């Protein structure tokens, strides 16, 4: 599907979705409340069939956090980027690890680095950081560590 066709299809599935143009792939902005339904449709809808989650990350914009998901389809060869704004003080979004298994580790990484709480995640704990790092999220822009960080 071309980007235009994807746009029409996604608008049918989720009329509340908005789009960001200008890139190679289309960016879909959605509300976290719609995420579980929308993700399910992306995977299961036959002419979308986004069967490959190739990037899951988060951005700290100081005013809010944004989750970013990159999906592609190995059958249709089309790609979509889904973004979702989260409240910085209480970042919460539904897990998609039951749809794309790879999201399990990716979400744990975002959990430890940004402190995003993935609802209904089967095993939400630290991935790489040593024990005891819960609550300190080193990729947040306001993270302070006077012992290790030399500020420039």
């Amino acid at each position, binding site marked *: 599907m071309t980007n235009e066709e994807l746009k029409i299809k996604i608008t049918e599935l989720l009329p509340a979705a908005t789009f960001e143009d200008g890139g190679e792939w289309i960016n879909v902005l959605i509300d976290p409340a719609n995420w579980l339904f929308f993700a399910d449709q992306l995977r299961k809808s036959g002419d979308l069939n986004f069967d490959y989650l190739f990037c899951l990350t988060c951005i700290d914009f100081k005013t809010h956090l944004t989750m970013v998901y990159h999906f592609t389809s190995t059958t249709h060869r089309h790609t979509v980027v889904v973004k979702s704004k989260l409240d910085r003080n209480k970042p919460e979004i539904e897990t998609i690890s039951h749809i794309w298994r790879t999201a399990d580790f990716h979400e744990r990484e975002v959990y430890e680095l940004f402190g995003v709480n993935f609802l209904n995640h089967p095993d939400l704990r630290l991935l790489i950081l040593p024990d005891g790092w819960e609550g300190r999220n080193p990729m947040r822009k306001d*993270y302070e560590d006077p012992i290790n960080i030399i500020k420039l």
Partner: protein
Amino acid sequence: MNESIKNIESSTIPRLEGREAFPGEVHPSPSGGILVSKLDDVINWARSNSLWPLVFGTSCCAIEMMSTASAKYDWSRFGFEVARATPRQADVIIIAGTIVNKIAPVLKRLYDQMADPKYVIAMGACATSGGPFFYNTYSVVKGADHVIPVDVYIAGCPPRPEALLHAMITLQEKIKSGMTREQIKMQKPEQSF
């Protein structure tokens, strides 16, 4: 204190430039010749020409290290051919990459498990000083010499294979002249380094 250190320096530094093939002098005789040498020098010569590196790489410098081992640069020419996957059989550890707080205790343990005499090469900016991760990082050790002592440092990010070869040959020269940290420590046991 410094009399013996001075003696070491004055007797060894000229030799660093000399790059003798084999330590000692040959006195010709009708039956062939007699070699006169010092046992310490012969041992150092032997050790320097058979340095087995540890298979240890933590980031992109390891790619350059693998390239140095490969046919094009071929560090076997200088006696480094047998890279060992266990510290108990390795002589030299090439710190090829970033050392983060989480790997630092592992690096220390690997170093402790190596048999004496052992040598360390810090390869690249990260292992030398933290490099590009010096500022604004929570996880990187700012120089591997905070964890284990280093004999030779290489600049570069990452250094080219030629630079690594140069560092390894420099280490050989250092061993031959008895100037590595371990060798000095053995000569002056009462001093702490």
